[in-house]
């Protein structure tokens, strides 16, 4: 049951997928699970569609976690988000509004092969697990493989590098599957959120160049308010701003691609911490991290619903 699943521990891919199946069977009024394709190693790419079913037109928000395999707090947050939505839909007016007015497409683990590999072999694996016969190394950086200034600054052409952009854009079946889905549904997807770790930042486009986006005012305002409410929870400071200047320049990112492809509000979260634990964020910090992030995500969602064109 929802109350028996432990959201304050990290779960293997199998556990997460079992959990998704279970919610699909037990919460059909708010959840519908579907697959958007297969990974390189043949695993299903599951997505949860969350929200009150309605025949009326509803806009949507896409949320993905686990683009980079070793960033386990990402998938933990995606699960937390779903849990909060189901548990507080009736009691929290904000959540009820979100579920009634929007659909949320949640992909708890985008890089399923890499995530599984980080559980079983190499805890610090980052990339996908694809292999081209002529190259000695496996994997592509799934956040450098999108078709937006592909393989330019901040990405590597070398297959053994952790920021390898791939042999061509959308070479990775996982990236291709998500890209296809977003292309198909872009008319009603209003926001794209992607969760990574670690740096404690809330980023928006562009990553690939130092230039302000056309709708900077609303995006910046949403980001500012989100980090402010996040800070109000436990006093944890998140920086915010365009990814290129706040973090570093990188080309081929999912956030930039989603923006370029017509989703007007795209963000990337870099969750806790800033390096004390790094990728090994202890499980006892899952709850505070997800609690503060949840507040920020709700704030962004409402801001975009009410204040932005």
């Amino acid at each position, binding site marked *: 049951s929802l109350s028996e699943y432990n959201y304050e*521990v990290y779960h293997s891919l199998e556990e997460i997928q079992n959990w998704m199946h279970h919610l699909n069977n037990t919460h059909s009024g708010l959840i519908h699970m579907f697959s958007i394709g297969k990974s390189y190693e043949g695993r299903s790419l599951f997505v949860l569609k969350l929200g009150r079913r309605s025949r009326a037109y509803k806009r949507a928000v896409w949320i993905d976690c686990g683009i980079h395999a070793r960033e386990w707090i990402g998938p933990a947050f995606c699960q937390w988000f779903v849990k909060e939505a189901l548990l507080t839909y009736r009691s929290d007016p904000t959540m009820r509004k979100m579920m009634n007015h929007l659909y949320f497409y949640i992909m708890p683990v985008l890089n399923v092969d890499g995530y599984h590999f980080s559980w079983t072999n*190499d*805890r610090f694996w980052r990339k996908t697990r694809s292999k081209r016969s002529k190259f000695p190394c496996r994997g592509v950086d799934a956040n450098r493989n999108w078709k937006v200034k592909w393989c330019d600054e*901040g990405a590597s052409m070398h297959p053994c590098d952790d920021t390898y952009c791939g042999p061509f854009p959308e070479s990775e079946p996982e990236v291709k599957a998500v890209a296809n889905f977003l292309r198909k549904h872009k008319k009603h997807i209003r926001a794209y959120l992607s969760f990574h770790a670690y740096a404690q930042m809330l980023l928006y486009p562009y990553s690939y160049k130092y230039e302000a986006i056309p709708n900077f005012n609303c995006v910046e305002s949403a980001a500012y308010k989100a980090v402010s409410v996040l800070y109000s929870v436990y006093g944890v400071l998140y920086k915010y701003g365009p990814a290129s200047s706040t973090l*570093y320049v990188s080309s081929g990112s999912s956030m930039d691609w989603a923006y370029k492809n017509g989703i007007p509000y795209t963000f990337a979260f870099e969750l806790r911490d800033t390096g004390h634990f790094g990728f090994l964020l202890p499980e*006892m910090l899952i709850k505070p991290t997800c609690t503060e992030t949840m507040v920020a995500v709700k704030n962004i969602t409402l801001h975009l619903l009410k204040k932005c064109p």
Partner: protein
Amino acid sequence: HLYSNRYAGDKVIRLVPNTKEEAYTLKKICHQLKVDLWQPSSLSYVSEGTVTDVHIPHNGSRALLAFLEEATIPYKILIEDLQNTLEKENSLQAQRNRR
């Protein structure tokens, strides 16, 4: 042991090169020692003032630390032994499960 004890003796070290020259030599030695970069995501981003977190295998940490001392590049050991950290967290989880 988790992950077949492969991370025994591995360290995570934070480095902040102060000058362009330090950044250049740091990138060179990190490339030679085949470090696992935690942040930033690529050595190409490392320049003066860049907070750089590297996961160095146990057989390379002595060489890296010796280099940093000689070059007087400030560093801080974030994680003394990665395997211990992983096992400790796993042990805590097992205790919680037993409780």
